[in-house]
């Protein structure tokens, strides 16, 4: 079966949906990659700093 034949009678809304999803995916990836260059304030410390600044996470820990 011709694979591309599947798209012959496809509803035009399909392409709108694909473009919309493509844009969402692109935005998602771009935001993720940009975030990678801006470490979070709640970021876990690098190992050395982590050891120095480790905190008791919750009061009911014990």
């Amino acid at each position, binding site marked *: *079966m011709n*694979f591309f034949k*599947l*798209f012959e*009678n*496809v*509803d035009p*809304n*399909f392409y709108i*949906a*694909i473009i919309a*999803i493509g844009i*969402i*995916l692109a935005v*998602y*990836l771009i935001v*993720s*990659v940009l*975030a*990678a*260059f*801006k*470490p*979070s304030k*709640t*970021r*876990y*410390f*690098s*190992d050395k700093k*982590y*050891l120095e600044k*480790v*905190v*008791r*996470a*919750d009061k009911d*820990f*014990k």
Partner: protein
Amino acid sequence: MSYNKRKSLETIAKIEQLTKKLRDLSSHEPDWVLQKFHSTRRGLSEKYVEINRSRYGENVINSDRKTGILSKIISSVFNGYNLILVVLAIFSFVTDHNFKNAENNSITGIIILAMVAICSIMRFIQSMSVDSTKNKLSKFIEMYVDIERRESGREETLPEEIVAGDIIHLVAGDMVPADVRIIRAKDFFVSQPTIAGETIDVEKCVCFNPNKNTTAAELKNIAFMGSTVLSGSAVAVAVAVGNDTIFGVASNNNSDQEAKEENEIAQSATEPVTKILLIIIAIMMLVVLIFNGCTTGDWQDTLLYIIAMAVGLTPQMLPLIVTTCFSRGTVAMSEKKCIAKTLTAIKNLSSMNTLCIDKTGTVTQNKVALSYHLDIHGNEEIRVLKHGFLNSFYQTGLKNLTDIEIINQVKELENSEPSLEGIFTKYTKQDEIPFDFTRRRMSVVVKDQEGKTQMITKGAVEKILEISRFAEYEGRVEPLTDELKQEILSTVKELNHKGLKVLAVAQKTNPSPIGEFCVDDEAEMVLLGYLAFLDSPRTSSQKEIARLNDNGVTVKLLTGDSASITKYVCRQVGINYKTVITGEQIENMTQQELSKACLENNVFANLTPLQKAKIIECLQENKKIVGYLGDGINDSEALKTADVAVSTTNAVDTAKENADIILTEKNLRVLADGLLQARKTFVNITKYVKLTVSSNFGNMLSIMFASILLPFLPMTSVQLLILNLVYELSCTAIAWDNVDMDLIHVPRLPTSRILTKFMVWIGLASTIFDLLTFALLYYVICPNFAVSSPTTFLNLQNLFSGNTLELMQMSYKQMFRAGWLVESIWTQVVALLILRTPKTMKNSASVPMFIMSLVAAATINILVYTNLGSVVGLVALPIPFYIFIIGIMLMYTVTIVIVKKAYIRHYGRLI
């Protein structure tokens, strides 16, 4: 009246009844009490052991909580999750019979019930496995009691063997194994648990109690089960055992504690996201109800669906999987000689970042050798050893390593040294004044065959000097002058610098106390000399401490020994220290100074037990999660205070009782191995929680969007439940998964804030690819393969009518749902395998983990081609669909890898 309230009132009534009985026993003479239980001061006869066992019961606390297999089955079947599923099944049966819905049939209800059965069996198997692990491990932490019986004499036995009327010998460090009436005591102090669960330190004695209004805690001559002996010694008769003790009754009231603990652990692992998940589920339910209800008009079906959706999207197997991980962790730790007494202990150990240790056995070899027995001028003198022996041999308290070494030395020399000849039989003990950490000395009074009585005191040099007025040298007694004291102290200092621990020995002849001997009699003593011991430094400890440091744990040495010995040992094993902080210095410090000293220094010497606990508290106030490794009576306070109390199988009862972790070998290497294993367990739990929560969040968003965008629901309730069940079952293998070393070389902390962010970051990727799948299924696959004319669902009504339309619509929906079900399990499996490690290339999932993931994916893929699949509303998928799925999965994999890397760079770590 609620069950709990009624139970509490019943408990209070029982305790009052027991108190009345104990008060009665307390108001009679010891001999009357012994007679009541047919016992004597030499114990019970064999005959009465059996009679009393059948009359008063065994010394075992049978909690009200049913512990048999039947109760396990009951608790596995009757729980909230199953209840909701059963309600859904009933609802499904009713709707299927009342409404001729072509999509549903009673099989749906049967499948839901089958799921109830699968979950129940899983829970049952797991709870049996946890119990079996606990039972195996409990053998390592058994305690023994010193009892006396008429025929067999004194022997060490398990507490369960005790019967009412048994004579029990108690010394410092012991746990009181039953409710007992004291018949002989010497400075006997116990830490007594109150009904509220706190403990108070009280002295117990033989004294007679005529007062009929005293409370149980005020009964001076009764010691209660669960109390720990702080100092002194006593002989007592058991008057209540097992469930008839106050401890037993109180324990039964708290019988749900164990079950609660397991739930609490699971709760603590999920609590941060539970609220968020509930809010999201509530919003989603509302959106789906409104949109789907409006578009389909079938409110009843929609209501059923959103209930199933809420159940299906909640990680209900979470407590089970978390407990499985902990249970697996417990077994793995025990293989490394590290036994976790509770599941919480594993969590705490994995978070520990500061470890306080005592010196003996950790940085030393725990093998004390007597190097010298010297007179006051530093010459070898056998009399010092002889008197030291009499003190060590006849004291009935806990014999420590130095006592044992003295006795062993004398045993060796007995035949070759004339003055030691017959020493084991020549003397009879008259009295003793037990050791305590304030006096730091102990005394015994012995009488020889000629009738001469001697009081012999042994202990810390400075404490013996305080009570000595004279000194003996070459048979002459001379006044102990200040010059002589200085000379002695400088000799001791010299010995300390060589790493030798020094104890002084003093005596006085024919002491004349009024009544019994007491601390005040330790005066006007004649100093004989001192005994010097060497506990050789353990050379491997530097490497072991460095290993702990590399794994994010700061090690601090807290010892009761002198600063000189401590410095020597530190130098020998290579522990770096700026200065050694002593107990005296700590006493004079302000809170601020102490806080600074605790953080900046690693070696503390000459500490009292309370000072050790104070240092730990101070570190805790400075946000440290502190572990303490100790095995002596003097470590009890520190163990109680520490976040992670670590002890050994050879420790005193009280240390074992207070410990969270028990090492079968006192060694820092063993603890480090256990610590890494605990962190592995914690990483696997975090991994599971994060992945499941993010996966479920992604599915929730997808369903929400589908209910807005599609004219039908993307999955039926039963399909959603099947997807959730298969995925969660595959997750049980996480407990056996490999963990990257990078993830465990720093302390693990609960990840509340970061968990929510992980859920959103990763969940979104899954939703985007779900939407892509929806588009392909709705516009490409279903029009080409599900219906006879290539058109979308909404256009079907323009081309078909009546039954044909209904059949076409159903076929369309079935293929769509089968497609999303298959895509969902693949995205979940791919996410599981990629996100289980921060690494990209070296992804070394364990074999069980890998197999279970593939089995989960295969199960769903095969299901759509089976009769069972058609029963739950699925149809076979065409081959082109899989071409799309491969493409989607490749894109999803690339996306997830990119997002994973970005996430790690943004937040610092993945898991």
